[in-house]
């Protein structure tokens, strides 16, 4: 190996990071051993590199650095699990809970509250007459004719009730002092109105059914404090 080649290869002769093939490294070492100029240059280069390299590597490392690093890494790991594992699980649980609550609400044993019906039942206004009540019933899908010979100033409530197995039967309630009168409007069907009924009194309450003249498809069932029906009627000729 000549001096020119040796000086070109010199930077590659590194003790800890060998860059030359074993053959080239051996040839170079042979040349440096036999050539005083190249040998001195290599020694000087090595000396300077060793001095500067030692200084570059000489950085004091804080003794507690590994502990701080591991603590931070542990916190990061926990945060990762919270974001990637715990949070999705909680979200899934929330969805399940919401689904369950929805199912319970839809299928649960409780009776739904009909807000519209409550408003309808509580909509009594002073001076409400039979026409307004018929319209209110019609608004609920129930078309009826109410008796005109009652004093509607005594009306205390009207609603659709369950009566002898049938829902949505119109009922009027009148009150005067302690006396009460209820009027149920029965229609055919579902009720059979072709029969004849006699008045029946029991326990201070009288029950009777009256059919408007010429009408077979509806009738009024009257329940009232015995002897008090006239107190709720107008003096005008009625349809009952």
């Amino acid at each position, binding site marked *: 190996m000549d001096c020119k080649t040796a000086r070109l290869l010199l930077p590659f002769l590194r003790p800890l990071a060998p*860059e030359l093939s074993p053959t080239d490294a051996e040839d170079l070492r042979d040349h440096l051993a036999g050539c005083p100029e190249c040998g001195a240059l290599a020694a000087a280069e090595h000396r300077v590199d060793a001095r500067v390299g030692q200084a570059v590597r000489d950085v004091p*490392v804080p003794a507690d*650095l590994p502990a701080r690093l591991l603590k931070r890494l*542990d916190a*990061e790991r926990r945060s990762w699990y919270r974001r990637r594992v715990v949070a999705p699980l909680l979200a899934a649980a929330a969805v399940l809970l919401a689904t369950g609550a929805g199912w319970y609400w839809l299928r649960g044993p409780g009776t739904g509250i009909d807000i519209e019906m409550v408003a309808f039942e509580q909509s009594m206004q002073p001076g409400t007459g039979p026409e307004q009540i018929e319209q209110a019933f019609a608004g609920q899908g129930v078309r009826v004719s109410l008796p005109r010979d009652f004093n509607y100033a005594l009306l205390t409530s009207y609603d659709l009730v369950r009566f002898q197995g049938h829902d949505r039967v119109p009922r009027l309630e009148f009150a005067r002092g302690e006396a009460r009168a209820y009027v149920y409007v029965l229609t055919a069907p579902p009720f059979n109105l072709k029969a004849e009924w006699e008045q029946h009194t029991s326990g201070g309450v009288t029950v009777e059914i009256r059919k408007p003249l010429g009408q077979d498809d509806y009738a009024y069932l009257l329940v009232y404090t015995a002897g008090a029906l006239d107190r709720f009627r107008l003096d005008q000729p009625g349809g009952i």
Partner: protein
Amino acid sequence: MGLPGSQRDVQRLVEEHYAALYRYAYRLSGSAADAEDLTQEAFCKAQRNFAQLRDRGRAKAWLFSILRNAYLHRVRDQRHARFVALDDLGDLPEPPPGPLPPVEPERLQAALNELPEVFRTPIILYYFEDFSYRAIAEQMDLPLGTVMSRLARAKAHLRARLLPAAVVLADGPGRGSDGL
């Protein structure tokens, strides 16, 4: 992002490489606080992306690469920092004869700080000794010849700063330029 590395794997990684990584970060950034931040950031990224490390034998190079990227990300807004103009330096001067003066830590770091990062990184890795030229080239994604050239210039700069008597063939390094 996949599962983070197991606690045991990451702990081993820290125990084996924290010191070298911190020293590298210190020489890159020039400050102990930044070095610790960078080391923490590098290990956190390594933990999150542990699945990318297929060959445990390359863990050190992988960590150094992560740390350098973290450093570059931090300093990308500092492109207008003023560095020495290495074009003003001549060839690598021959070492001076006789005993060498001691290298003062502050002067060494100041000299490193004067180098643009593309020169500072290879010279630091070079002096860490166990990084081959090829490994440095892979770290920096550069051709081997470019790495050799930058190393020679960086060495010349350090010798000019730390061993002034050696700079007999070169002009003094210029200041006030953006670099290369």
